[in-house]
């Protein structure tokens, strides 16, 4: 899976719910927006190894 976290690209194997992916990465689902293959998804959506995932932190200060 190609997974970009806050602009940094990474590759790893994962198949399951977005929520589980975020838990694995130690990210709270409430502070990020997740796009799969360019579309915003919910944490209940499922992803697999062929997906391009983008995780962007959106809860910021200022």
């Amino acid at each position, binding site marked *: 899976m190609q997974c970009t976290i806050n602009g940094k690209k990474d590759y790893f194997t994962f198949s399951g719910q977005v929520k589980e992916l975020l838990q694995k990465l130690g990210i709270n689902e*409430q502070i990020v927006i997740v796009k799969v293959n360019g579309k*915003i998804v919910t944490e209940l959506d499922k992803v697999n190894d062929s997906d391009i995932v983008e995780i962007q932190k959106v809860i910021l200060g*200022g």
Partner: protein
Amino acid sequence: MAVRDGKMVKCSLCNKSAVIHLSYANSSLCEKHLIHSVERRVKRTIREYKMLDGAKHIGVAISGGKDSQVLLYILHKIAKPMRIKVTAILVDEGIEGYRDKIIPEAKKLTSDLGVPLEIVSFKELTNYSLDEIMKMQKNQRGESSCTFCGVFRRYAINKVAKMLKVDRLAIGHNLDDMVQSYMMNILRNEDLLFRFKPIGGAIEDERFVMRIRPLFRIPEKEIAVYAVLKGFKSVFVECPYVNEGLRPMVRDFVNSLESKYPGTKFKILQNYLEVSKKISDQFYSSEEGKKINSCSICGEPTSSSVCKTCSLLSKLLRKE
């Protein structure tokens, strides 16, 4: 209830792919229904709290971040048919690499909406940018950047709002901001509960412009998704001082609670509204609540003899 079709979650109100899952309501919404839901709840809040009753000119405090962009966009949409004038007010704290990236986006949004933009800087008002203040504070156990920023920003916005003669000042505080501020008040044992009321401020006085917080019941994530769907820029620009102070810890704690016990944020907000109402009634019927002074240094209204802005500046200059 969220409906799953294969690996995609469907909107609870139609058959389209969902863009957000609302655990507290056990439902999911597609792009169209999330936008509709956020706007409907903001309108309901404005109506319920009579936020715009009799208003002729609203000042919208914008930082260029997602909350204030969404606030400006929705308020402009609501105010236009009501023939209420809207002016955006942006405070430039003087944070290199942050505010200079955001100002052009704020100018673009206000220009697209046809809303006048008034920019005021900390430097103009206090002679110091936030970066300069933090350099002066270096190696000293002084106040956090967020304390200076919050106090000076309130001072600046109120000053500009009075200059523009606006009769409402809209602030983009969302549900998460309200809950975090309430929790921080408890943790610091401060009595600033009225400062975050949905309508009005810490002190009721004609020298303060009436503040309204139309987003106070909207969770931050819903605002973020709304902003991304509307194509607002600057959503991902982070303040370099964001990890200072107590707020980030409180934010993480509340978010962990919300993930484990959905609806926690709304319950904390409800508790805040009930507690602040009781304390507010008691405060305003007391002598202390009726007493408003003028700051002996700048003349701005304050409950003490010197306002918080002048007090912070005096402390800073003593350390210099």
